[in-house]
């Protein structure tokens, strides 16, 4: 086995994280087959409203009589889809800008990096909320808002690597044999920045699930009857303190999923960043 992977395999917290992530991904893919009541994504059964957890409904039922266990399972797909779309779009914006700013000098590079500074100077949640609000509350604007506030992280990473490599001998050599800028940047510089990008993307997936849940909770994301975790917790508030299970389990799902990505991301970062590796 590759020595880097072997080192990762010995990191117990990272392996716990990987296991959680794999389980969540499986649940997201197989959700409709795993959930005991897959129809409860949308259906309602008013006769069995707000039942506490039992064998038939391990996490209880909600105010419309839907099985919360099924809805927590079904919510995984949406959470992962949103996170992947957001991080994917943020990478699609951030990485080319970072390559450009790092590889070229001049006004445009300077501008890109200043914009990064300003965007990063405001907590992501606030900026995303403002942006989503301006665009009109919907799941699409929430996702777009999250991407538009997350890309600078990728730009900064790629910028640093592009700057470093631009001065290196092998890029000179590539110029010497007549390679074009686009080719050098995408085929030779980008692969060198790939590990910090993977680390940031992993942590970003967890972070986005959390922020998206906040947006959902505030009614700025998913809309009923979607089995969104954040939205479910918001809906549960009317039925507290009696229906405690209504709020408890979706929150645990968020906690575990985000923890999985964070533990895995931390483990990967320890591999990539030797300075931190030493202190672990």
């Amino acid at each position, binding site marked *: 086995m590759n020595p880097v992977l072997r080192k990762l395999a010995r990191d*117990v*917290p990272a392996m716990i994280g990987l296991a959680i992530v794999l389980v969540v991904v499986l649940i997201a893919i197989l959700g409709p087959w795993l959930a005991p009541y897959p129809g409860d994504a949308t259906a309602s059964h008013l006769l069995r409203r707000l039942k506490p957890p039992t064998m038939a409904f391990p996490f209880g039922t909600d105010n419309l009589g839907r099985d919360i266990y099924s809805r927590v399972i079904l919510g995984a797909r949406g959470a992962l889809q949103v996170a992947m779309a957001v991080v994917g779009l943020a990478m699609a914006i951030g990485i080319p800008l970072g390559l450009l700013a790092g590889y070229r000098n001049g006004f445009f590079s300077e501008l890109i990096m200043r914009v990064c500074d300003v965007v990063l*100077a405001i907590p992501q949640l*606030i900026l995303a909320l403002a942006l989503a609000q*301006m*665009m009109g509350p919907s799941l699409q604007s929430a996702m777009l808002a999250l991407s538009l506030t997350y890309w600078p992280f990728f730009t900064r990473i790629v910028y640093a690597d592009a700057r470093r490599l631009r001065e290196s001998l092998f890029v000179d050599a590539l110029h010497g044999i007549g390679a074009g800028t686009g080719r050098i940047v995408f085929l030779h510089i980008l692969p060198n920045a790939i590990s910090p990008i993977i680390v940031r993307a992993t942590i970003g997936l967890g972070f986005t699930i959390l922020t998206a849940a906040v947006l959902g*909770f505030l009614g700025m994301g998913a809309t009923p009857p979607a089995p969104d975790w954040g939205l479910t917790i918001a809906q549960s508030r009317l039925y507290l303190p009696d229906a*405690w299970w209504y709020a408890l389990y979706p*929150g645990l799902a968020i906690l575990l999923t985000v923890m999985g990505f964070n533990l895995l991301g931390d483990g990967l970062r320890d591999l990539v960043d030797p300075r931190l590796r030493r202190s672990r």
Partner: protein
Amino acid sequence: MTRFLLLRVGTAIPSLIGLLVLTFLLIHAVPSDPAVSLAGDAATPAQIAAIRHQYGFDLPLWRQFLAYAWKALHFDFGESAFSHRAVSLDIAQRLPATLELVIASLVLSVGIGIPLGVFSALRHNQWPDFLLRIVSVAGVAVAAFWVAIMLQLYFSMRLGWFPLRGELSPDMAPPLRITGSVILDSLLTGRFDAFGNALSHLVLPAVTLSLGGMSGIVRFTRAGMLETLQQDFVAYERAMGYPSGRLIWRYVLRNSVTATVTQIGLLFGGLIAGGVVVESIYDWPGVGNYTVQAILTGDRQVMLAVTLMIGVIYTIVNILTDLVQGLIDPRLLRRA
């Protein structure tokens, strides 16, 4: 020192201008006509045109920006569509409560986070360290709004230890408003009944808000301690008979907290942002709660003002962070 401060303030000015541009673009990049939403659904085209002219929406973009910047510099953010009062007045009134909550959370995060981080480092790779690592990841991974609800469920509704919401019981006469913070005002006016009441209201929100930051501080302190403990001077200090308590808590810790101080700086902005949700759940009369109302009612002036305010606070805190780092490690001041 003065030179360092001036230099640092100088570099902050472009960021502040950028912040103005960004918030300005936020309004204008959106493909909806602000005049239409201001005028309301029933407005005639003539009314819309009048409003457009009145607010200057028909001027060239750069003139609109200058007008916006000029107003922002004078703390003029227009009127809230929700409360029909000046936004800056609304914010000024709510800011003390938010600062009270943020500072209480900060004190909790730092006061508990740093000792836990030191403890974790001293037990490096033993089970307390392992446990703290997992718990600190959980602290960042948990949704604050969910924690808030769970704490309310258990500690207020079931056990009845702490009040459910607000910053003072409805039947408690508020102290004379001096600073705007109920805790401070009740102390200043000698109203100890109100002080106790306010303190018990503060506990749950502050604990909720402090969790994420505490985790970050534990992690950074731990990493800093582990790095410092390997330094030659620690071995030297042991060899020269420094008592172990003072060695760890004074001589090693001060070398380890520079990264933690950065973290505390970042935390301040994060706490204000996190406070948005936490304040609304605990019905805390601060800026965050106000922001949530603005979000729900689509009050753009308020959203913009809050975004700008947080950006400015963030920039100021960053400068202060650099300054504190310089005071801790004098080598940094010279390098700057």
